[in-house]
C-alpha cells in the first residue's frame, strides 16, 4: 500500500513538472540546484539591468553624436561664409546677407547644443536639468554656458563606465579658441566688411571643425564600447539561460519516460495488492 501511495505521489509530481515546465520550483525540490538557479537568475537580472543602462546611454550618445554632426555641418557652413567674406570682391549688401546667415547659424548651433533626451540636456554636463547654452551679453562670444564640466557616467558592466556625452564647455572651446567668440568676431568682421580679418579666422574654424569631429569620434568610441559590451552580455545571458534551463526546466523526454516507468510500477503494485487481497481461506470454508 505504501508503494502504491509513493507511486501516486511520484506521478502527481511528474505531472506537475510537465504542466509547469519546471522541475524545480521550490528549494525543497533540490536545495543546491535551487540556490544555484537563483544565483544565475541574479546574474541574469544584472545583465538585463546593464543592458537597459546601455540602451539608455546609447540613446544619449546617439543624440549627442547627431547634434555634434549637425554642429560640424554648421561650422563648415560658417567656414564657407568666412571664406566668401574673405573675398574682397563682396559688396556691402552681400556682407549684410552673410551676417544674417551667420546669426541664423549661431541660433542653430545653440539649438543643437541644447539638445535633450529622456534624461535631460545632453551637453549640460552633470547638471542635466539646466539649459546649457543661452544668449548672454556677459558670456564669452555673447553666449554663456550654464552646465558643468563634469559629465554623467553610466556603469555598463562591473567596473566599466561610459560617458555617453561630452561637456558643452569642452565642445565650444579648443586651444584657446571659443566657438561663439569666433562667431562673434566673424559677425563683427562681416558687418565691417573686413575681409582680411575674415581670412585670418579660417584657421580657427578649421581647428573648431577638427575639434568637433574629435568630440564626435569620442562619442562614437563610447557607442562602440557599449555595442561590444552589450553583445558580450547577450552572449553571457544565453550561456546563463542555458545553464539555468538545465537546472530548473523540465526535460520533457526524460519526464515522459519517467511517467511511463512510474505508471508501470503503479499498475504492478495495484495488481499485486488486489491479487493478494483476493486470496483468502474464507473461499475454502
Amino acid at each position, binding site marked *: 500500500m505504501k508503494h502504491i501511495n509513493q507511486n501516486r505521489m511520484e506521478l502527481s509530481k511528474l505531472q506537475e513538472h510537465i504542466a509547469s515546465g519546471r522541475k524545480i520550483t521550490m*528549494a525543497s525540490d533540490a536545495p543546491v540546484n535551487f540556490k544555484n538557479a537563483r544565483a544565475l537568475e541574479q546574474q541574469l*537580472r*544584472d545583465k538585463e539591468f546593464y543592458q537597459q543602462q546601455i540602451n539608455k546611454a546609447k540613446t544619449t550618445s546617439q543624440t549627442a553624436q547627431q547634434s555634434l554632426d549637425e554642429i560640424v555641418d554648421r561650422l563648415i557652413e560658417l567656414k564657407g561664409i568666412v571664406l566668401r567674406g574673405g573675398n574682397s570682391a563682396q559688396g556691402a549688401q552681400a556682407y549684410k546677407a552673410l551676417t544674417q546667415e551667420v546669426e541664423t547659424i549661431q541660433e542653430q548651433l545653440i539649438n543643437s547644443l541644447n539638445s535633450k533626451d529622456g534624461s535631460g540636456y545632453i551637453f549640460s554636463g552633470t547638471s542635466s536639468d539646466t539649459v546649457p547654452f543661452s544668449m548672454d551679453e556677459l558670456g564669452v562670444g555673447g553666449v554663456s554656458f550654464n552646465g558643468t564640466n563634469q559629465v554623467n557616467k553610466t556603469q555598463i558592466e562591473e567596473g566599466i563606465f561610459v560617458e555617453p556625452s561630452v561637456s558643452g564647455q569642452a565642445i565650444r572651446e579648443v586651444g584657446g579658441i571659443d566657438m561663439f567668440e569666433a562667431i562673434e568676431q566673424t559677425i563683427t568682421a562681416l558687418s565691417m566688411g573686413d575681409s582680411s580679418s575674415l581670412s585670418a579666422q579660417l584657421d580657427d574654424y578649421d581647428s573648431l571643425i577638427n575639434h568637433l569631429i574629435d568630440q564626435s569620434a569620442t562619442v562614437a568610441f563610447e557607442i562602440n564600447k557599449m555595442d561590444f559590451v552589450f553583445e558580450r552580455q547577450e552572449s553571457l545571458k544565453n550561456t546563463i539561460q542555458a545553464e539555468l534551463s538545465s537546472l530548473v526546466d523540465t526535460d520533457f523526454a526524460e519526464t515522459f519516460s519517467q511517467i511511463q516507468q512510474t505508471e508501470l510500477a503503479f499498475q504492478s503494485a495495484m495488481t499485486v495488492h488486489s491479487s493478494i487481497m483476493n486470496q483468502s481461506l474464507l473461499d475454502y470454508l
Partner: protein
Amino acid sequence: MNSLIEISRSGIKVAQEGLNTTAHNITNANTPGYTRRRLITVPQHQIGGKGLQGLGVKSADFEYLRELRTESLIQTKQQELSYLEVKSQTFARLETSFVSDTGGDLDARTQSFLQSFGNLASSPQSRPARNQVIQEAELFIDAVKNVHSAIEQERELTQNHVQESIRKVNRLLEDLDGLNKTITSALNRGEQALAAMDTQVMKLQELSEYLDIKTVQSDNGQVRISVGGMEVLSPDLIQQLQLTKDSESEHLDIRLANSGQGISVESGKLGALLELNNDDLVTLSTDLDGFVSNLVQRVNFEHSQGYGLEDTQPRNFFSDMDGSASTLSIEEDLINNIDHIAAESISGVQGNGDIAEAIAGIKDSKIMSGYAPVEFAIHFISSPGSKVSALNEGIDLRNSEMELLTAQQQQVSGVNMDEELSNMIQYQQAYQGAAKVLESAQIMYQTLMSIVA
C-alpha cells in the same frame, strides 16, 4: 459412562471458547492497537484405581501476544517521526511564503532596490529615476515585511499548537492513569483487563507522538511513564504538564504542574514545536533583522554622506529601525520630496551621481555572514526549503523503520486472518468431534436403557 459425557462436554466447551477467541481476533483484525489472544488449553486428569485417567480438556488462560521491546522501539521511532514531520510541515509552509515563481521574492527585490540607485547614478536629476528608487525601496520593504510576518505568523501558530499539544498530552496521561486503575482493579478481581491493555498500547503510541517518553511496563500490565528523566505517571501518581511563556522573548518552557519543576522535551511533536518556537524561528527572525539592519546601516551611511538637489542637509534613506525588520520604512522627507534623495557627493554640483553609485555598489559588499546582500537573501529564502529536503529524507528513513517494526509487531501481536481461519476450522472440527463423542455416549446409554426396558 458419565465421564465420557463430561469429557465430550469439556471438549465442546473448550472448542466453543476457542471459536469465540478466534471470532474476537477476526473481528478486531483492523482495530488499532488490538493485540491478538490465544486460548491456552490443558488436559484434565484424575488418578483412579487404574492410574492416571483422562477427564477431557479445560481452558487455562488467554495468552496475550505482546512484544514489548518492539512496541518500545516503535514508540521511539514514532517520537522521531512526529518530530521530523512537524518541523518539515512548518518549514514547508515558510518556504511557500518565502519563495514564489512570480519573481517578487526578497532576493529579486533587494537586487532591484540597489539597481535603482545604479539607474539614478547615470541620470541623477531624472525624476523618473528618483521615483523608481522610492518605488523599488517600497517593494523591498514589502518583501521584508512579508517574510517577517510569515515568521511571526508561524511562531504564533506554533505557540497555539504547543498549548493544544500540552492539553492533549495531559488528557492522554489522565486516560493512561485511568487504564492503570482499571488494570489494577481487574487484577484484584483475579481477571485480566485485556481491553484496557489494548487501549493502553494505543494511548502510549499516541502519547509518544507528542514527546519523548520512557515507559516501564510491570508484569501485571501497569505502566510507568517518565519524560526528560521525571516520572509523570505511575500506578499511584500522575503529574500533569504546564506551559510557561516568557512575556518578552516568548520563550516556552514545560514544567510539572504540581512541583513547577522544568522538564526537557526534545523529541516528538512537542519537542519539535518547542525547538521551532525557541530556536529555529528565532534564528530566522534574527537573521532577517540582522540582514535588514546591516543593509539599512550601509545605505544610510552612504546616503547621509551625499546631497539632494535642494539643500545640503545630510539625511538617512531609511528611518531608524528599532532592531526589527517589521519597522523598516523610508525617511518621510524623501517620500514627500524625491529631490532629497542624495545622489551627489559634492554639494552644489547638481547631477553628480557618485553617492547613488556608491549605494548601488553595496550589492558587492559582504554585509552579512560573508554574503553580499542578494547572496544572503538567496541563502535566507532557501534555508527553509533546504531544511525540508533534509527532514524529508529523515522522514522517509523513519517511515521505512516504522514499517519494518510494525510488520515485526504485527507478526506477534497482529491478527493473521489465515491463521485465525485455520484455527476456526480446527475448533470447528474439535467441536464436531466432541459432539460426536457425546452422541456416541448417548447411543450407548439408549442401548443400555433398551436392554433394561
